[in-house]
C-alpha cells in the first residue's frame, strides 16, 4: 500500500490553501523542513514567518495576526506546540476564540530515536481540555488535506495532529470529510475498535486478522476528537457491546478518555484503551516502539479478543 506521511500532505495542502486564500499565513519555529511548512515558505515567502526557536512567541504572534483578520497556521513538533506554548494557546487563542490553526507534526512515539523528550503523548489531552478548540487527528494523507481545508473554514482555534513517518493511504479521492463526523471504515457486530490517526490503519489490519477467527469488528475512524461524534460512539456501544480504543497517545485524556466519558454517560459497556500506559516514550526505531507499547495489529487484535470474552458481564 502506498505510504505518505501526514506532514508531507500538510505541506502540500498549505500551498493549495495559500493560492486560494491570501489571508492564510504560516508560522514556524525553526523546524520548517521537518513540519513541511517550507513548501509554503517557498511559494509565499512574504506570508511565511520563521519565529526561531520561540514557540510561545509564535503562538502569541499568530493570535495577533488572527485578531487582525489573518488565518495563521502555526507549526512545530507537537511536544513544543502544545506543551511549551500551552498557556498561550489557552489564554491568547482559545479563551479569546481566535482563528489560529495549530498544525503540529512529530506527534507520538513514531518520532523514534529522538526519544521521550520529543515524543508527545499528551497533546490530544491538552488540546481537548480547552473550550472552543477543535481537535483533528487525520489518519492518512487524504484526510490530512481535507482536515487542513476544513480547519481553514472553521471560525476559531483548531489543533491538527500530524506524524513523522509514512502511513498507508486509506481513502480514495472521493473521500468526504466532515469535522465531528466519524467514519465507519468497516462493519462488524462483535466489537468496535475506535481508532484515531495512524492507529486507524492498524485497526483495519487487526480487524482483518480477527475476521479469520470469526470475530466481526467494526472499525470507527475518529478523526475528530473534539467535538466527539458521540452518536457513533453510542451506536458502537449499543450495537457491538464492547469498545477498544486505539491511539498513539497516552491512555489518559485522549481518544480513550473521550470515548469512555461518552460511553459512561450514555450507554455503559466495557471500554478498553490501547495507547501508552501512563509512561513517557523512549529512543528506538518507530516500529520497535510500536511493538513495545502494543500499538501493532497483533497486539490490538489480542486486546479485542480479550474484550469480546468480557462482553456483557457485570
Amino acid at each position, binding site marked *: 500500500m502506498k505510504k505518505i506521511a501526514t506532514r508531507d500532505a500538510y505541506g502540500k495542502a498549505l500551498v493549495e490553501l495559500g493560492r486560494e486564500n491570501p489571508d492564510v499565513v504560516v508560522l514556524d519555529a*525553526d523546524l520548517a523542513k521537518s513540519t513541511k511548512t517550507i513548501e509554503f515558505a517557498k511559494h509565499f515567502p512574504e506570508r511565511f514567518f*520563521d519565529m526561531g*526557536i520561540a514557540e510561545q512567541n509564535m503562538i502569541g504572534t499568530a493570535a495577533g495576526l488572527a485578531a487582525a483578520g489573518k488565518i495563521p497556521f502555526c507549526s512545530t513538533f507537537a511536544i513544543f506546540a502544545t506543551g511549551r506554548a500551552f498557556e498561550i494557546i489557552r489564554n491568547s487563542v482559545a479563551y479569546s476564540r481566535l482563528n489560529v490553526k495549530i498544525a503540529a507534526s512529530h506527534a507520538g512515539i513514531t518520532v*523514534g*530515536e529522538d*526519544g521521550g523528550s520529543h515524543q508527545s503523548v499528551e497533546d490530544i489531552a491538552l488540546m481537548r481540555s480547552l473550550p472552543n478548540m477543535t481537535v483533528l487527528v487525520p489518519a492518512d494523507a487524504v484526510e490530512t488535506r481535507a482536515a487542513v481545508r476544513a480547519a481553514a473554514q472553521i471560525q476559531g482555534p483548531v489543533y491538527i495532529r500530524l506524524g513523522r513517518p509514512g502511513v498507508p493511504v486509506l481513502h480514495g479521492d472521493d473521500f468526504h470529510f466532515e469535522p465531528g463526523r466519524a467514519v465507519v471504515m468497516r462493519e462488524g457486530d462483535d466489537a468496535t475498535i475506535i481508532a484515531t490517526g495512524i492507529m486507524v490503519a492498524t485497526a483495519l489490519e487487526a480487524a482483518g486478522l480477527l475476521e479469520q477467527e470469526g470475530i466481526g469488528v467494526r472499525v470507527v475512524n475518529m478523526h475528530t476528537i473534539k467535538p466527539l461524534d458521540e452518536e457513533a460512539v453510542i451506536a458502537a456501544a449499543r450495537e457491538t457491546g464492547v469498545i477498544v480504543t486505539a491511539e498513539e497517545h497516552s491512555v489518559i485524556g485522549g481518544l480513550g478518555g473521550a470515548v469512555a466519558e461518552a460511553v459512561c454517560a450514555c450507554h455503559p459497556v466495557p471500554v478498553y484503551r490501547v495507547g501508552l500506559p501512563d509512561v513517557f516514550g523512549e*529512543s*528506538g526505531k518507530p516500529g520497535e516502539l510500536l511493538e513495545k507499547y502494543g500499538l501493532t495489529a497483533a497486539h490490538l487484535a489480542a486486546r479485542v479478543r480479550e474484550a469480546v470474552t468480557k462482553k456483557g458481564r457485570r
Partner: protein
Amino acid sequence: MDGEKIKRLEEKARKIRRHIIRMTGAAGSGHPGGSLSSADIVTALYFEVMRIDPQNPRWPDRDRFVLSKGHAAPVLYAALAERGFFSVEDLLTLRRLGSPLQGHPDMKKLPGVEMSTGSLGQGLACANGMALAARLDGRDYRVYVLLGDGEIQEGMVWEAAMAAAHYRLDNVTAFLDHNGLQIDGPVARVMSVEPVAEKWRAFGWDVQVIDGHSMEEILQAVEKARAVRGKPQMIVAETVKGKGVSFMENMVEWHGVAPKPDEVERALAELA
C-alpha cells in the same frame, strides 16, 4: 600555560570527536554538527575544569554540567565515557531501544547526566536552581551550562538570565556555542540574536568572548570566570558547527543528519 596539558586536552577533544562520528554513524541519526562545535568546551570541562568523581556520580560536592542544548548528547556521552562514568563500548548503543544513551540526555537513565534536556531553553533555569541549592547548603560546587545560539531565542533563557543576575549566582558559568547556525539556516537569517555579548552584559552578567576551539582560551576564560564575584558569567565561544570534519564545517545540513559509512571513514581519517 602548560603546553603539555594543552596538547593532552587537544588530543582528548579529537578522540571525543571521533566518538561523535562513530556513535552517530552507528545510530544512523543524531546531531553531529552541534556536538562537534562544542567538543573543545566539553573536553576542557570534563578533563581539566570540573571537580567530579566518576566512581561517585552523585557526590554532593561535585561540579555540575547542564547540557542545555540537549541535542548535542553525543559530545556529552563521549566525554562521560572517556572520563570513566561508563564503558566506551556503550557509546555505540546510542539511540537504540533500551539503551541508557537516549537521543537526548536522560538523568534517570545515565550516570553523570545532571539534567534531562532536549527541549531547548530550559537548562539555564535548572542550573540556577542547582546554584541556589549550593548556596543554601553552604557548598562550593560550581554549575556549568552550555547553550546554543539558536536556543537563546527561547524567552525562558532570558528569564533565567535575569534571575541568575538578580540572585547574584556567581557559581554559574555559562557557555554560548556561537556557531551561527540553527536548523532552518543561519541564526542571523532565521531570528537574529545579536549582539549577544551586549545582551548578556545588559542582563547583568560578566561576559567574555573567546575562540571556542582554542583550549588555551577556554581554560583562561574559565579561570577568569571563577574569580568573578557577585555575577554569573557568560563565555561566548566563537565556534564552527561541524568543527574538525571539513565536509561538515559550517554546513547547516549536518545539524541533525548522521554520517553514512563512507562519510564516517572520511571523517575519522581527518580526525586521526
